[in-house]
């Protein structure tokens, strides 16, 4: 789960949008007390205790108080991001309700994260290239090590974040005087924290497997699932793939 301050909320807090909009809030919580409170509370739970119904958007948002600041947050489960949507200031003795101002933004269509906010979450070309460059070297190397050590699991980190195990079994086909290799790959989930930005899960899985599986192996012959052939079987939440080649 990631904590993000939407562009509109960055403006509310007087923080420079260009400097912070592409970064998780955890990286700059000291920039403002409200960001710190957001990280502390929503880092513990993506939802608050006090829900607010929005006049237009069909989403459950939660109040967050800090001093005289009044904020709304939203857990976007599909993106696994908690957004700080907007921040209002409550003057002592004032009848103005900071939440009413934020709700008015919902009516105007400026409260919820917009395309710019979601593009801030997207992987840049440079980030994608850095990931691909690491995969192109480390994934084939891991398979090569496992092929040199058949019957033993070889584990390593790919891109500093993906904990991957590879196991190669040599199967003798006596009748045909041939051998085939059965290659098992297990990806431990979730990825470890680290500086390398990862694509979405399906895409990093495809990319790593594409760097491992030779072109002559048909995708239809790649099996997903099954128990990784180590003592104790697959780890909890491990994604396992297997293919065979002569």
């Amino acid at each position, binding site marked *: 789960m990631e904590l993000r301050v939407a562009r509109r909320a960055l403006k509310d807090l007087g923080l420079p949008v260009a400097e912070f909009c592409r970064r998780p809030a955890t990286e700059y919580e000291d920039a403002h007390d409200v960001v710190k409170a957001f990280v502390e509370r929503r880092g513990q739970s993506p939802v608050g205790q006090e829900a607010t119904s929005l006049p237009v958007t069909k989403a459950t948002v939660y109040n967050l108080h800090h001093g005289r600041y009044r904020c709304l947050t939203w857990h*976007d489960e599909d993106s696994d991001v908690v957004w700080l949507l907007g921040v209002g200031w409550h003057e002592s003795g004032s009848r103005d309700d900071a939440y009413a101002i934020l709700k008015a933004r919902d009516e105007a269509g400026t409260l919820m994260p917009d395309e710019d906010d979601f*593009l801030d979450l997207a*992987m*840049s070309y440079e980030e*994608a*290239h850095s990931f*691909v460059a690491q995969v192109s070297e480390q994934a084939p190397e891991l398979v090569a090590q496992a092929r040199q050590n058949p019957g033993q699991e070889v584990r390593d980190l790919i891109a500093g974040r993906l904990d991957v195990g590879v196991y190669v079994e040599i199967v003798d086909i006596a009748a045909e005087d041939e051998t085939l290799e059965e290659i098992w790959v297990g990806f431990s989930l979730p990825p470890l924290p680290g500086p390398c930005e990862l694509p979405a899960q399906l*895409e990093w899985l495809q990319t790593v497997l594409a760097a491992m599986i030779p072109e002559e192996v048909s995708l239809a012959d790649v099996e997903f699932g099954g128990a990784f052939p180590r003592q104790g079987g697959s780890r909890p939440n491990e994604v396992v793939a297997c293919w065979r080649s002569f």
Partner: protein
Amino acid sequence: MATKVIRAPEAVHSEVHAAARVLGCNPSELLERAWESFRQSPEFAEDFDLARKAFSVGDLDLVASRLHDQSIERARQRAAAVAALRR
């Protein structure tokens, strides 16, 4: 034949059961069919084969461009989905 429990969101659970009744199969068979359809889908196979060919000739730019484009597309789709939450 069902062998393991999979937890699904309520709406998906209801639709899968309804679709399974329409198709005359049970939900686990439908899920198996859906998974096979997905892994044989042109999108899944194309992305995989494109990356595999690109790695084999060292064309890292092509793989990186594809990942970048997919990420941008996903961001746009998510923004549109959030905008559609407006009643």
